[in-house]
Structure formats: structure tokens, C-alpha cells
């Protein structure tokens, strides 16, 4: 059974058609990443899935529930999901542990407060006022509040904006651990390397529709696209695109009598493929 099922979703703001007939299906247990430029309809789509916005047309099911329903049913549904929004900056007069403990009281089966603090790496800061946290620490607090309810589904919106590379790696490990523990994750991000490191599948959204859904390795025919072989020949750098890089390398090797100087074999990065798709769709 799919965790999230969207069919023919439409949403306009006046004359602006933000989402124009979008279909999406996300399976249980996967990390699914939604990619797309600003204004592509990404945020609108996610906010409809989170129950923050109403839709104009189409059907939406999240954990078997229509997010735009209100009332007690909606509380029971919210008890099963976690949301990490883009930066929120509360006044910050509470400590980390007070805040997490308080939020844990909203849920029927919260995770252990101490364990959550540990897992997001805020143990040393648990007694600190939120206002005294660094940007990255605040972001980890956001994540702690998103997962404290022990959600079946976690929405992560641009989670590592403003992180240094080390903090980012630590954060990725945390997200992978969550998935291992059984949480399904919908990740929106601008960082293609983040999607590549974390996502089982990615969807590229542009102009309010999904252009392609695939694994990061196969997106846009990436796995089968031509490789580029580059090497040094005397004073100049040469490069050649080819469907058969192994054959090319082996023939170069025999002509160089062994080692090929400064050999590099690459395939397009996820970012190359993505930019090509977005550019193509915009023309």
C-alpha cells in the first residue's frame, strides 16, 4: 500500500497555476525526495500534503487520510506524522529539553526525550536556552521536534540549509537511522548531493507537474548516458564522449604503453542531469 497517493492535484493562486495536475505515489519505508526550482510548485504540493493548504482539484491521501479534513480525525492523523518546516525562530525563552519534553506531551506514543536529544546531537546543549543555540543546533532542535512523536511519516523541508559539511554528514546519518527505524521520509531539498546520498527515489517537479520519478542513479537516463573520458596527451588535455568507455580506455592504454596520464572517466552528476531537465522544461 502506498503511504502517499496524489492524483490530478491542482492549486492556483488567482491567475498563478502553482500545481497543474500532479500525480505522485510514495511507498512505505522509503526516503522520497522532491526536487525542483523555486516556484515549481514544490512548497505548495508539500503544504497540501501536510494539511496546511487546501487544494482546488484532485485527490490526496496521506496515511490513508485526506489532509484537508479538520477536527478530531485530523488530530489522530497528525499524531502519526512529523513535520520539520523551514527555519522557525521562536522567541527562545525555553531550554532545549523543556521544549522537547513539552512537545512530547502532544503525542500518544512519543519517543523517549533523552534518546531524541542524543540522536540529534544536542545532549551538551539540552539545558541551553533556544535563543543561545547556533543556526545548525536550532535546525537539529527542529528535527527533534519533528520526530519526538515517533512519526510513521516525516516531512523534511530543506533540512540542512546553513549547515557546515561536517554537520551535514552527521545529519544525513541521523536521517538514514530514522529510515532504518521504520520512518518514511518526504524530503524537499535544493542540494542534489543530499538527494543522491539519502533518497531511494527522487521526483523532479517543474511548472506544477512531475517531469520524472526515478532512483537518483537512473534519473534522466543517467545510468546509461555517455561517459566522458579525459586524459593528457603531450601538452593538451583531451576528452571524448563515448558509450563504451572501457574499450576507449583499453585502446588508450595500449597506445600509451600502460599508464594513461591524468585519466578521468565521468558520467553526468545528478546536478548536471537535473539542470538539463529543468532547463529543457523551461524552454
Amino acid at each position, binding site marked *: 500500500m502506498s503511504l502517499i497517493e496524489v492524483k490530478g492535484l491542482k492549486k492556483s493562486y488567482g491567475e498563478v497555476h502553482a500545481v497543474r495536475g500532479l500525480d505522485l505515489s510514495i511507498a512505505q519505508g522509503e526516503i522520497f525526495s522532491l526536487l525542483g526550482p523555486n516556484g515549481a510548485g514544490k512548497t505548495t504540493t508539500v503544504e497540501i500534503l501536510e494539511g496546511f493548504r487546501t487544494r482546488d482539484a484532485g485527490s490526496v491521501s496521506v496515511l490513508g487520510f485526506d489532509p484537508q479534513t479538520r477536527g478530531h480525525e485530523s488530530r489522530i492523523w497528525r499524531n502519526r506524522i512529523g*513535520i520539520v*518546516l523551514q527555519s522557525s525562530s*521562536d*522567541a527562545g525563552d525555553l531550554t532545549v529539553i523543556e521544549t522537547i519534553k513539552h512537545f512530547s506531551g*502532544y*503525542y500518544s506514543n512519543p519517543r523517549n526525550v533523552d534518546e531524541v536529544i542524543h540522536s540529534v546531537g544536542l545532549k551538551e546543549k539540552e539545558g541551553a536556552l533556544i535563543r543561545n543555540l547556533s543556526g545548525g543546533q536550532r535546525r537539529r532542535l527542529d528535527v527533534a521536534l519533528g520526530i519526538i*512523536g515517533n512519526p510513521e511519516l516525516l516531512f523534511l523541508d530543506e533540512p540542512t540549509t546553513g549547515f557546515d559539511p561536517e554537520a551535514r554528514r552527521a545529519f544525513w546519518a541521523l536521517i538514514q537511522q530514522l529510515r532504518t527505524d521504520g520512518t518514511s521520509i518526504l524530503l524537499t531539498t535544493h542540494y542534489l548531493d543530499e538527494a543522491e546520498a539519502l533518497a531511494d527515489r527522487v521526483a523532479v517537479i517543474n511548472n506544477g507537474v512531475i517531469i520524472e520519478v526515478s532512483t537518483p542513479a537512473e534519473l534522466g537516463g543517467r545510468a546509461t548516458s555517455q561517459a566522458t573520458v579525459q586524459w593528457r596527451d603531450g601538452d593538451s588535455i583531451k576528452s571524448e564522449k563515448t558509450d563504451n568507455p572501457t574499450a576507449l580506455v583499453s585502446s588508450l592504454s595500449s597506445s600509451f604503453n600502460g599508464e594513461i596520464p591524468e585519466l578521468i572517466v565521468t558520467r553526468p552528476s545528478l546536478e548536471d542531469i537535473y539542470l538539463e531537465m529543468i532547463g529543457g522544461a523551461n524552454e
Partner: protein
Amino acid sequence: MNKIPSALQLGIRRGGLEIRQFARQRESVVFTLLFPVILLAIFGSVFKDTIAPGVTFSQYFVAGMIASGLVNTGFQALAITIPMERDFGALKRLRGTPMPASSYFIGKAILIFASMVIQILLLLGFGVLFFGLEMPTDPGKWLTFTWLVLLGSACSTALGIAFSIVPKSGRGASAVVSPIVIILQFFSGVFFVFTQLPLWMQQVAAIFPLKWLTQGMRSVFLPDSFATQEVAKSWETERTAAILLVWLAIGIFFSVRKFKWDRD
């Protein structure tokens, strides 16, 4: 699977959290709790006359200060701070949790009521010690006082939450809300004797709750003989209760129907 905590349970927990947060904002604690005392000190020192036999201006003014304290602490504070919480993204985050809106409202009501109780104790203590304030002895008056504070702070809380949808941003909220409150205070007989105000001001004030809260507080702190000097020649206790209840209902209606968790 355990059950989700009830809205009331969460509301009480939120009340505790709101009080803790409030207590850590030193500026706002001082301003909210001591400002009425400072005003009493200023006005009580300037106006030393009696306004009727046995009624000092301080006695009259304390009634007005408690009433306007209800409006400042509830309506004004909430109509300014809620848009700020909205700007910070704090409300949107709350909305993403299973905590219902009613719990958030109950939490605010608890905060307002708690700070009102402290404010009133300070004001009365200060008034008795330094400005010859006389406390009512009739238990009936204390009963009136109790329901006025309860109903008044509930009404003020509900209207503050409802009005929080009006300011576009937290930064501009004060400029929208404060003038309304100050004008109401002048019109409602907080700083001046109500019956000495122009008739049109009295009529405008009679639409809003502050005039009735002020008059109700006078019925507690002034001798019954003073009732004859009111506009209606009586304290109009039932009418006061009725008007406050109507405003409470209006406040709750708009809070529940129109509350905004997010900008735009």
C-alpha cells in the same frame, strides 16, 4: 496505542509553558505587572482631591486601573504577541502537531488570568499601603469582583486572540492595537470621571467592554452611594454581565473561525 491527550489537558500544560516563557522575559514582566502600579503612583500623587464625599481619586482610579489592566494584559498583549509568534513560525509549527487550537487558546487564557491575579495583588497592596485605598468589606462585593475578573480576563483573552488576525505583521501590530486601547481608556472613564466626559464619548464607550468593566470595578471599590452618580443612576450589574458575555461570545467565535496560524 495510548490515547491522544485531551484538549483541556494540553491546554493546562500550555498554560504552564506560557507562564514559564512569560516569566523569563524580564522586560515584559516588569512592564505588565508594574506599569499599573506606576500609573497609580503618578495619578495618585497628582490628584489628591475627593471626587465625592468619602471617595478619593485614588479609590476611583484603582477601579479603572484594574479594568484597564484586564484590557492591557489580555487584549493588547495578545493582539501584539500572537502576530509576532506567527511571524516567527512558532504557530505554524504548533499547527503541524496534534495539539488543537483550543489548547493553545486555553493556554493563553491561563497566562492572562495568572498575570492578572499578580497584577491585581500588587496594585491593591500598593494602593492600601501608600494611597489610603479602602478595601470592600461586603462579601457580595468580593463575589462581584471575582466574576468580573474571571469574565473580564476571559473576554479580553478571546478578543485579543480574535483581533490578532488584524495586524499584518508582528512589527506593525503595536501600531494598530495600542491606539485603540489608549482611546478606549480615555473614553471609558479610566483616567477621568466617566460622567464628566462628553455624551458622545460615553455613548461610544458604552459599546465596548472596558466601560462596563470599569463601572463594574467601581461597584466593588466605591460606596454604593456613588451609584447614583453613574449615568444610569445604578451600577447596572446585570447589564454589565450580559454585555461582557456577548463580547466573550464574539471573541470566541472569531478566534475559532478565523484564527491564522501562518502569514499570507
